[in-house]
């Protein structure tokens, strides 16, 4: 083999360093985003050695917790944390009974898949009254005159596991919609919404280090894209921080 100058070999090393540096730079750039999604973490409030409470809200638009997003995103339905901040990831303490309270401000839309009409993996209450299916809502309405519910859910809150999970969790609760004629008489940060429905349920977490997903399975929102086949699980439905996100069971 012909002898090369030491500069030649140094050049190889420098090129490799620069090349891997470029790869690292690109990885960091891509990590931050390709244009969509909100970030943020909401942690369940620890109320005891093995209990915690998580408060969330669903809104018909993003004025409350994504007010600084683009013109299109601001019109999207979204989940917000109980304190009206944006979040993509929920953190829960391990080995705990989690109580979830969701304030549902949005009106109802018919489910595409009836599977999600049923409360699964838990028992749930609507404004304090137990229900296990959206068909139960009719009887609840009669018992509380003056406060009507939509026959359809506004959203679902569905927790599912990642493949081969060591501690699988599956919880799905249809979040009953507000009647579409209800007056908008609640002021949240200057935005007017109808009185919310409060849906609550509980479930248990397992060991720390497990990861889950939360996702809504009731497509709604923008009528042009979401309600027509292929059922627009697009827009907020596939944007982390709006209608989809992650759950991390971790110590904090």
């Amino acid at each position, binding site marked *: 083999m012909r002898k090369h100058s030491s500069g030649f070999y140094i050049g190889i090393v420098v090129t490799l360093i620069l090349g891997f540096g470029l790869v690292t730079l690109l990885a960091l750039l891509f990590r931050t985003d390709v244009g969509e999604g909100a970030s943020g973490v909401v942690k369940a409030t620890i109320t005891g050695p093995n209990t915690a409470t998580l408060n969330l809200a669903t809104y018909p638009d993003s004025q409350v917790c994504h007010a600084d997003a683009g013109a299109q995103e601001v019109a999207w339905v979204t989940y917000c944390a109980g304190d009206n901040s944006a979040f993509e990831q929920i953190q829960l303490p391990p080995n705990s009974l989690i109580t979830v309270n969701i304030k549902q401000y949005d009106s109802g839309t018919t489910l595409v898949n009836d599977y999600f009409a049923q409360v699964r993996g838990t028992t749930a209450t609507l404004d304090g009254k137990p229900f296990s299916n959206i068909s139960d809502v009719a009887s609840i309405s009669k018992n509380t005159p003056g406060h009507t519910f939509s026959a359809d859910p506004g959203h679902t809150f569905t927790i*599912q596991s990642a493949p081969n999970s060591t501690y699988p969790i599956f919880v799905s609760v249809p979040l009953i919609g507000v009647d579409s004629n209800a007056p908008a008489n609640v002021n949240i940060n200057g935005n007017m919404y109808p009185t919310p429905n409060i849906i609550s349920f509980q479930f248990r977490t397992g060991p720390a280090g497990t990861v889950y*997903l939360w996702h809504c399975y009731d497509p709604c929102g923008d009528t042009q894209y979401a309600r027509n086949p292929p059922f627009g699980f697009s827009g907020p439905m596939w944007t982390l921080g709006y209608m989809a996100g992650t759950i991390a069971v971790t110590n904090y």
Partner: protein
Amino acid sequence: MSEANIEGNTGAPTPVGQEPHHFRRVMVSWIVISVVGIVIWLLLAPLILPQGASNLDTADDFTMVVFTVLAIPVAAFVFVFLGYSLIFFRTKDRPTEDAVPLKPRPGIQIGWLGITGVLCLFLFIWGMIAYYQETSAAPNANTLIVRVTAQQWYWSFDFPQYGTSSQSQVIELPVNRPVQFIVTSEDVLHGFAIRAMGVRVDANPGEMTTTPVVTPTVLGNYTVNCVELCGLLHSYMWESVNVVDQSSFNSWITSQGGHP
């Protein structure tokens, strides 16, 4: 004459009787390596291939073993000829003479076409027979029917014969009982696949597609995965499948709200 081709660029030809029998050497090496390779494969195959959990998967695994047994000599042929040529016909640097062209022998080319043709036809016929054996069974009264609805990004399962659906990401199937999956999608294409049971079919919106009738044969835990890219959480779509005995299955059905 062929010595002149060999490394060293020596001008002096070797006496004809001492010329190495390249072709003979290569053929012997090829046979030895093929046999060794096939033996190694047959020993390793049970370790490499995941254990088949259904009649279909076991049959497919067997096909893979047979095809690999055929493939080993084919691959070895190329590798041995190539390796031998690189060792014995290589020049150290730029050659000063051309090589002598091989005498054209139509027999080699026709024989090659013939052998590869026969191999191809064998693979095709084996595949056809194997596949139609596996998929010809029609569902009967004993077949468990499972309806699968795919949607971004969740599999939901209905058991219409029992009037219930899955309550979580776990379903159970009774062992040794034929089952057929009828699959559809609510939105885009998904791919319904249970690797261990050797079934897969796409879930199409607006269509019902079916897997062949498959019989789980081994108790255990397996997974359903989505094998057709369907958007954001495609790689999170899964379902756990427990293959259990019939009585455990009945209890499970009852626990899900059905009537066994």
